């Protein structure tokens, strides 16, 4: 009797052990490694109109990487947290990500990138922010800008104005956000002028939350301003160009005499500007390093297919901020892929090294940008090429070929 019970117990134990092995083995062998990353951004609150599609771009691309096994059995787990555009919340999110062992960090705003710069240095973690503020990379070894800085964008627009203006020295006003994000490029444009860029800055306007810019625009007209270069977000630009259209002072073609041509850097443009300003956005010149869906190509096809695959609405699918999110996720994935290919352990250090080695023949060409991504220990701006677009019949169209700033090299 005792022997029978023992035999039965032995058989039961054997069965249980077998069941445990059967259950665990597939996961143990097929699971691969999981690389953790973090993204903190404004999904709600100020600038969430940009942050929301950006987060979806990041989320969808990492899902795509995992679903299509771009990294084999290994997966990327990217935790995405809302920070409501508040540095204090970003810091909390960042600490949370660190607790969970991230190897790569994606940040968002200028304020939080500058505010957490010391933390990034201490933790030695590579960071790709959505902010292209040139000050982000000063005194930093770990922050990499995805594309050319705001300064480079605004200086490139200034160069475009100088190269295409007919007549005397062009008179330019700058319309900027009242923060480091807006003010940063002004100094670089002034340096470019000192270095020989033939234009005159007549006025620098720091906008508030005005709902009417009539007085400001009339003042600029009285000073014979022909161009307004904007470095801010879409809504104040939309208000201004609508007022300009109402006053009948918007140029119908670039540099039209007696009228004002409006131009803007990355965060001033995109489909959101057209939605906000309507017909008044016609002939607005916009610079960015991203491909956009109104100019179809392999990059935009991929963007739209990704959005369709993960059920995004048209607004998100066609947003340049969605492309922006995809692009940073692509860069993060690429450095993991390269480190894996070399048989290296995936860590903060190896990914940082891979970013620094992303130049020359190792430059990375994501389909969502107009030029290759290059980084080194001295070059922290990813895509150096910039494409100018202008609104024609309600959509942004390419103006010429991608350009790079000449004066930024001179003033560096």
């Amino acid at each position, binding site marked *: 009797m005792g022997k029978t019970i023992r035999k039965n117990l032995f058989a039961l134990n054997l069965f249980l052990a077998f069941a445990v092995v059967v259950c665990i083995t597939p996961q143990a062998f097929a699971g691969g490694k999981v690389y953790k990353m973090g993204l903190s951004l404004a999904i709600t609150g100020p600038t969430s109109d940009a942050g929301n599609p950006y987060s979806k771009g990041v989320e969808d691309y990492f899902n795509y990487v995992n679903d299509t096994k771009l990294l084999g059995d290994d997966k990327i787990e990217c935790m995405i947290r809302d920070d409501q555009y508040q540095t204090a919340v970003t810091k909390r999110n960042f600490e949370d990500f660190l607790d969970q062992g991230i190897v790569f960090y994606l940040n968002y705003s200028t*304020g939080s990138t500058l505010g957490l710069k010391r933390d990034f240095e201490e933790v030695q973690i590579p960071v790709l922010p959505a902010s292209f503020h040139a000050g982000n990379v000063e005194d930093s070894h770990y922050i990499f800008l995805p594309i050319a800085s705001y300064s480079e964008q605004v200086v490139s627009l200034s160069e475009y104005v100088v190269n295409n203006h007919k007549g005397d020295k062009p008179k330019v006003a700058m319309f900027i956000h009242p923060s480091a994000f807006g003010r940063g490029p002004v100094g670089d444009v002034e340096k470019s002028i000192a270095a020989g860029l033939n234009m005159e800055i007549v006025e620098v306007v720091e906008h508030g939350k005005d709902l009417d810019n009539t007085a400001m625009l009339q003042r600029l007209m009285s000073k014979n301003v022909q161009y307004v270069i904007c470095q801010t977000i879409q809504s104040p630009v939309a208000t201004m160009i609508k007022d300009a259209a109402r006053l009948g002072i918007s140029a119908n073609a670039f540099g039209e005499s007696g009228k004002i041509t409006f131009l803007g850097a990355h965060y001033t443009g995109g489909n959101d500007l057209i939605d906000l300003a309507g017909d008044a956005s016609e002939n607005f010149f916009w610079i960015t390093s991203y491909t956009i869906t109104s100019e179809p190509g392999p990059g935009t096809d991929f963007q739209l297919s990704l959005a369709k695959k993960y059920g995004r609405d048209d607004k998100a699918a066609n947003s340049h901020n969605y492309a922006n999110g995809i692009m940073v996720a692509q860069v993060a994935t690429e450095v993991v892929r390269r480190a894996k290919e070399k048989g290296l352990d995936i860590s903060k250090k190896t990914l940082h090294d891979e970013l620094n080695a992303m130049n020359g023949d190792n430059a990375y060409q994501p389909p969502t940008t107009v030029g290759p991504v290059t980084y080194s220990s001295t070059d922290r701006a990813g895509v150096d090429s910039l494409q100018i677009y202008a609104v024609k019949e309600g959509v942004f169209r390419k103006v010429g070929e991608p350009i790079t700033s000449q004066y930024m090299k001179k003033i560096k």
Partner: protein
Amino acid sequence: MASNRWLATGNFFTTYQEEQRTFTTRLDQLIFSIFLLTLFIWPLLFELSRTYMLVVDNILIAVVAVLGLNLVTGFAGLISIGHAAFVGVGAYTVASCSRMIGDSHIIITHLWPVMIIAGGLAGAVMGAIVGLPALRLKHLYLAIATLSFQMIFEWTINFMAFFNQGQTIFVGRVMWLTGEVGRSDHYVFWYYVILIVIVMCGFGVRNLFKTRYGRALVAVRDNDRAADAMGMHPGLTKVYAFALSGFLAGVAGALHAYLYRGAGIESFTLHHSISYLAMAIVGGLGTLNGSFWGPAAIQFLDLQVENVAELAGHYMPSNMNLATALRPLTFGLVIVLFLMFEPRGIANWWRIVKSYTKTWPFRY
């Protein structure tokens, strides 16, 4: 007074001194001591993640700030809608020194207790200056004066190069007996520092109301003409209330600068002033323990709403930015509900619980 100092079931005070005791019974004292001891030893027993430690530290800093706000608004009856600016003055006192002498200068890293007091004093000076209109203004007019200070403060920080135009000014890591306080110990270290500050401020405020200076605040709030007739100077009392409030706010700001290792304008905006006011209202205006309940409740609520908003933001279509509205909506709703149904705040619930347990198991 009841012969049994452990279990008093009613008020049996026979002298003013008895009435002014910090703890009515020994049991109260014992419970408070155990509670305090628990606050000091729990981080040694349970390791909390840095994230949660940061949340706890934030609540504690808000407690210091709301203690100050409660002094001026709750006890002295002067509405202040610029409290975050006073907190900012303290933070920018530390940050400005850091900018002038270097963020790793010995004054910043070694003499940080002095810097915290300096932050408080700067807040007190600003409080006294902003309080000057209280000599002539009352009610909503005074509220507007404090609001204008908030605006001036934000404008000054945002536009002056010295303050880095509102961007973060870094503050170095501090030194302790064991050397530099590193990343791993940072939040726990500041937890203890802030806790000690709270205990000191809490007892300070509690004892203040045993003195004529504290009672003058309440007297001026209740009827400044009567207070005047009783020999108090209502104007000076109001200015001094603002100065005292500014001191506590400044201390909170200095602690904030050290905790976040820097100061940036976005932590001291009008939105934060309203938050502090909400904390004081929800906690219970004119009560000491309300200053503890309010920050804890509002920050906890904020975290929960934040999670819901984030979730909604992930799943709602891009053109329906409803998630953004969720936070201010909840926030406003809580304040309105408290003002309507429990204007005495959570502190009143605490009073009810205490009075119930005091007579337990008897009903009356």
